[in-house]
């Protein structure tokens, strides 16, 4: 070795530890990528910009609610505002795929659909979107998960899945 002082001394055990650490992270990252690309566990991607002061002008949010686009395929347009969701309740048959589009009229909100993989930050000016398939009948609460003012704790709605 040319200059002993320029190379770092690394203990054997430490070397093993470093290799294990790197391998572990590679495996984890691989698993996450596979889940995202092969199993479709997606995170939100930009869809549309809107003006929170005039949501009617956006077209899609002029009349919030559920729209059937094909048999058992729905789009749900939901407006979050202090301290409620509009609409508060939607009903779909079991086996439906619902694509949610959510935006805010005022401050930031959250949209977490319990017992599903739908969890989104709702930011004024943006539209958050994720899709989910409802296999089992029942009631699924969607709750506001971002602090939005004094009555934040009361802000929720539900999806009713009928057989």
């Amino acid at each position, binding site marked *: 070795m040319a200059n002993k*002082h*320029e*190379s*770092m*001394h*690394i*203990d054997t*055990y*430490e070397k093993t*530890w*470093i290799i294990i*650490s*790197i391998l572990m*992270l590679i495996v*984890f*990252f691989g698993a*996450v*990528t596979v*889940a*995202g690309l092969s199993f479709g*566990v*997606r*995170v*939100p991607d*930009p869809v549309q*910009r809107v*003006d929170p*002061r005039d949501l009617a002008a956006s077209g899609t949010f002029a009349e919030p609610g559920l729209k059937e686009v094909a048999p058992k395929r729905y789009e749900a347009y939901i407006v979050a505002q*202090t301290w409620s969701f509009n609409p508060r309740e939607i009903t779909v048959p079991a086996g439906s795929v619902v694509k949610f589009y959510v935006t805010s009229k*005022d*401050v*930031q909100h*959250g949209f*977490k659909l*319990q017992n599903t*993989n*739908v*969890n*989104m*930050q709702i*930011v*004024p*000016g*943006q*539209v*958050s979107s994720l899709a989910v398939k409802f296999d089992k009948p029942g009631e699924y*609460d969607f*709750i*506001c*998960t*971002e*602090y*939005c*003012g*004094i*009555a*934040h*704790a*009361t802000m*929720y709605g539900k999806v009713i899945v009928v057989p």
Partner: protein
Amino acid sequence: MTTNIYQLTAKEKRFIGWHFFFAIFAISLGGLFGPFQAMEHAGWDFYEKWLNPLFHSYYEGLTLHGVLNALIWTTFFITGFLTFLMIYGLKRPLKYFWLNALGFWLMVVGLTTAAIPILMNEASVLYTFYPPMKAHWAFYVGVTLVVVGSWIEGWGFYITYYGWRKEHPRTRTPIIAFMSLVTMVMWQIATLGAAAELLVDLIPWSLGLKAGLDPQLDRTYFWWTGHPLVYFWLLPAYISWYAFLPRQAGGKLFSDSLARFSFWLFLLLSVPVGFHHQYVDPGVPEGWKMVHSLLTYSVFFPSMLTAFTVVASLENAGRANGGKGLMGWLAKLPWNDPSVLAQLLAGILYFFGGIGGLINASYNINLVVHNTAWVPGHFHLTVSTAVTLTFMGILYWMIPYLTGKELWCKKCAVIQVWLWFIGMTIFSNAMHVVGLLGAPRRTPLGQAPYIPEEWAGHLFRVGIGGFILLISLYMFVAVVIGSLFTKKLEKEVEPPVAESLLDPQTTPRWLDHWAPWLIGATILLIIAYGPQLIYQIQTAQFTSPPITNIFGN
């Protein structure tokens, strides 16, 4: 290598002591509200009955809790601790004491300016202050002054270091000074995001000079700072684990080179990871989220290095104390020393915090936990235990060092540390579980209409954990106050700086050169943030006016 103790002047010690005074004052008030929140979850609401009208709402309390603990306790403690590490490490006074004093008093002015609107319930926006929810302008100005004050203290360190370097061109920078400088430089790069958000957007907007904001862009600015902020908290704790704990436990630092290498990696990787707080944001493309996910995994790596080196150093200590066998050395660590105990227990809980952090960072797995009670469950293991309990442990030797007086009631300090560990274990575990079941964070769950029966037991444990932490916090405050009135120590406290197993001078020179690492950090930032940040600025729509009448006043 014998170290003759370098003496700090009484003035320098007082200066550091004032940092600690404000830090401890902040946590003694900010810490009070945490247990109130936890007990609210369990159904015991003190806000309505007791705290009103002095403290107006759950969210005023939560804002105080976040701001005073996560921003004030940490920043004041850290700048004070780093001041000590710079002076003692370089064995020379600050080049311009007045400059550091200016920075410090600016922080105090900032703290006061931000505190007034919070206490009037005019700034109940929590410590992330997401727009377009608007706080009183004084809140934003106050937070800005705290950050700028900490920058000025940092500039004072750089100038002092420059003077030392000119006189010692070939000597390795003493490790505690080196690590302090890396922490400060990282912090100054990291806070550029919040500076942009506050100076360009929030302050003019809150003063009515700007009609609207783009909240998505401000989230991106905020999280540029928001994640490295946690490394600003953690690195000083790591300094103590690397450079003090081995000596306190009776051993030596296992690897000087690896310790420095890990700090350089933190400088490189702490900042370009902010999108992992924005995985579920609508305005950030999936691809960029993936890039930051990978970079976040990379920043986990230096923490793994730290885990190895710290545990190896402790093993070295335990064996030096006569510990034998595979695990026998563990029993030989000085568990009855409150300073050591605090750091050991902090490290144990940090192990679980680290695992949780890796889960949060995992792109789509984050969908399960984002904005649930899991998240505060997680960061109460990291910032509120790994960091806070370590800082308490540091104070248990530093207060006697600064005052020259004995620590009051060492037994109380030991019990205090155990109670923190136990309280946090109960609290954090319950928060993680109830979060996985779907409970949102930042929510007075006692009032929420959608709580299923099965959460009740966990919410009860949240309250119990909070109550134990309340006792522990005030035992800590009692020990600190008591220690001001004890008798003088016969022998001065020697700061327990650990020697390295290998002479630090054998550490390769590339680990003591700033330029390559700073250039690397800049390049990585440009790659990770540049395109998306420019895109968000170019396409920004400033359509969100301030929204204020939602704090329940």
